[in-house]
């Protein structure tokens, strides 16, 4: 049961990685980066369920915070430059 769910999540991350590598403009790459970040948060929740450790939920929270900061900084970079 757990393996099926994890394989589906990793498959969707792989399809998103295709858009990240191919995407014609910078905006497409940032969208794909954001989607992969949220999938990473969900994957950390699944790993916490698999290893039975609630410490990974804190790591998921910090990972989501860092990903949000990265998306915002890239959006500012498109808008105004460095």
């Amino acid at each position: 049961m757990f393996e099926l769910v994890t394989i589906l999540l990793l498959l969707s991350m792989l399809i998103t990685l295709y858009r990240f590598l191919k995407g014609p403009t910078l905006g497409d790459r940032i969208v794909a980066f954001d989607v992969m970040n949220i999938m990473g948060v969900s994957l950390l929740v699944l790993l916490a369920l698999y290893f039975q450790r609630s410490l990974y939920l804190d790591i998921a929270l910090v990972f989501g915070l860092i990903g949000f900061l990265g998306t915002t900084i890239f959006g500012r970079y498109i808008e105004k430059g460095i």
Partner: protein
Amino acid sequence: MQYVGYFFIFLGTLSFLISSVGLVRMPDVYTRMHVGTKSTTMGTILVILGTICIEPTWAWKLILLAIFILLTNPLSSSVIARAVHKDGATLKLDAFKEVEK
């Protein structure tokens, strides 16, 4: 209770899979952003709900994570939309083009 939780997690990962397929097939930056933000929010909320059903003692941390995702995900979508629009991206299928003529 465990099977209900795994059912919710399966629905969430199915939402992630639909989101990634739409991210490949959509023709434009705006439509890709529309696909990539809304369904991933729903997928994350479903995965967290399933984990709450399996392990009820972790509920507070998971609810905090869900509130955090619900707050920051539309905000990052709005930031990307504003930046791409100011950069001058155009729609591929413009619905208002024939109205203006």
